[in-house]
């Protein structure tokens, strides 16, 4: 069954995309580590980290596209799952610091010493182990999505109401994580990381490894999403998106279909967050900002929702634009982002990729019609 599904996932477009991502995973770190700094093809370390960050955003946008573009659930809180995955990774990285912190406490992170913690809170136990942190990166966002989705979809909360409560979810988490008593660093979050899996986190080799891991994870996400979208379940998801109650009258449990997509998507977002944190070196409650989640929606819309390539292109392009723009005219970035969203909504409602597909389909000559249907009077075989 698994091999069959993988086979189905490998449609031509997905093969290309995965091949490109694997090439990028090899070439970018190689261009950084193997080529001397004077070589025109040399990739500076900061660029490796920056593009690694873009790729984690691409995973997040793809995750959102699975629920929004294919299943019609406009989540305005996907940043919450991303941040939870990020916090799980951050907790692991904090515990790797050990006695190298400012206060040199072998067990307690600096902020806990500062806040007079006597011992490690219970929910920090286990995070010194990589395997435990890896499980939590998947489990915490997945579980939250499951519980939230279970109640929301069963109660048939849809459309703008669902969007609003997802927004409330991420805002509530923002407020909670700001508190110092939460035991997660409050306002400052978690930072000053030293090692990941025994490797110094600032080293160029570690940066390259993290970049490659992100590109490979994105490739795997593409495979998972393509497998889901190309299956009959993918067709049911599109049916739910287009005519929810009709799908119900066909006997499909719409709430379960949505719940499945939502949980898979949240897990992907959590993994993206976990890859983001070691590359940017910090996780703080700001990642729960509702505006972050809305930005993800914009990336997806710009690239083209309901396509696999679209959100990846959208996330990379918009964030590249953000990097350039905030460098040149920092005050105007939000205006540019808002303007971009308006332009895309008005003139490219299907996003860049969707619009390109539309052009190509129109330019393709219309296939010769199949033999005309039998005359109405002639009854077909029964």
């Amino acid at each position: 069954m698994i091999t069959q599904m993988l086979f189905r996932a490998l449609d031509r477009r997905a093969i290309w995309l995965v091949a490109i991502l694997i090439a990028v995973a090899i070439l970018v770190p190689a261009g950084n580590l193997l080529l001397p700094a004077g070589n025109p093809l040399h990739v500076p370390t900061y660029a490796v980290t920056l593009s690694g960050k873009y790729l984690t955003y691409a995973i997040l946008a793809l995750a959102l596209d699975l629920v929004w573009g294919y299943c019609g659930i406009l989540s305005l809180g996907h940043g919450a799952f991303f941040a939870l995955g990020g916090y799980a990774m951050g907790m692991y990285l904090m515990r790797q610091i050990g006695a190298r912190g400012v206060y040199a406490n072998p067990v307690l992170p600096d902020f806990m010493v500062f806040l007079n913690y006597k011992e490690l809170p219970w929910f920090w136990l286990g995070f010194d182990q990589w395997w435990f942190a890896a499980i939590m990166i998947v489990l915490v966002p997945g579980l939250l999505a499951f519980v939230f989705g279970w109640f929301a979809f069963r109660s048939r909360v849809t459309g703008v109401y669902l969007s609003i409560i997802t927004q409330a979810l991420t805002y509530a988490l923002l407020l909670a994580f700001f508190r110092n008593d939460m035991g997660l660093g409050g306002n400052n979050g978690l930072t000053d990381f030293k090692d990941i899996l025994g490797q110094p986190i600032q080293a160029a080799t570690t940066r390259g490894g993290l970049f490659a891991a992100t590109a490979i994870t994105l490739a795997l996400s593409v495979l998972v999403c393509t497998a889901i979208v190309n299956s009959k379940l993918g067709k049911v998801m599109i049916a739910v998106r287009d005519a929810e109650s009709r799908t119900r009258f066909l006997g499909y449990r719409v709430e379960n279909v949505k719940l499945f997509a939502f949980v898979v998507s949240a897990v992907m977002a959590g993994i993206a967050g976990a890859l983001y944190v070691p590359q940017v070196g910090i996780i703080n409650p700001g990642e729960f900002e509702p505006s972050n989640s809305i930005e993800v929606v914009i990336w997806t819309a710009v690239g083209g929702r309901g396509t696999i390539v679209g959100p990846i292109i959208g996330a990379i392009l918009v964030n590249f634009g953000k990097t350039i723009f905030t460098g040149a005219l920092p005050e105007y970035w939000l205006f540019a982002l808002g303007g971009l969203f308006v332009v895309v909504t008005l003139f490219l409602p299907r996003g860049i990729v969707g619009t390109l597909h539309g052009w190509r389909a129109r330019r393709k000559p219309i296939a010769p019609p199949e033999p005309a249907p039998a005359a109405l009077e002639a009854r077909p075989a029964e």
Partner: protein
Amino acid sequence: MTDKTGTMLYLNGVTVSFDGFRALNKLSIIVHPAEMLAIIGPNGAGKTTMMDIITGKTRPDDGEVFFDGRTDVTRLDEADIANLGIGRKFQRPTVFESQTVWENIELALKKPRGVFSTLAYRASKADTDRIEEILAIVRLSSRKSELAADLSHGQKQWLEVGMLLAQDPKLLLVDEPVAGMTDAETVETAKLLREIATTRSVVVVEHDMSFVRDLGSRVTCLAEGSVLAEGSLDQVSANPLVIERYLGR
């Protein structure tokens, strides 16, 4: 009312109000296995509300609704009821517009509906044969790879009938199937429904009297949420109450 054993659909004293408006008022209807019933009546008589109640979209305030003589459908939701074997065609043709004709039938085809079984689903030879067969019956074989959105209104109606067939239900609820069809298509639809009714129960709501005549089935006239008259089309249309309230003089 009579015993419910041996009936396919049994409505007894069903009442439902929306904001004080009584959409159904002690409605009682029986449909037997492999029987067709045509329901006529003026706008607002409760025809569509009745279908909403049978398919679980609306809960009755009072009364009982039994399927297949034993299952109380007022306790179940839409998906459960659909899986029991009640298929519904909507008044406005509702097909999945962004998917192909083939995919529409494939989605409706009677197969396990769970998340993981649909994820792992692969069409068997029997399944594709059945889809081809249904497409031939509803005359859409030549358009199977086109998007449902590109079909004409009448063809969408037929596609929805095809989806009903693919569901393989025991009871079909068909709401205004011939709206937007040409005369020839209307005649064909009546023929198809009559044929379906040889093995399954069919309830048809329709305004088109010549189509109802073509169906040649028992007729029930609803008005203001309850049964006004029952019998053959000739009996019902000769009923003075029906003439006054619905057909007009």
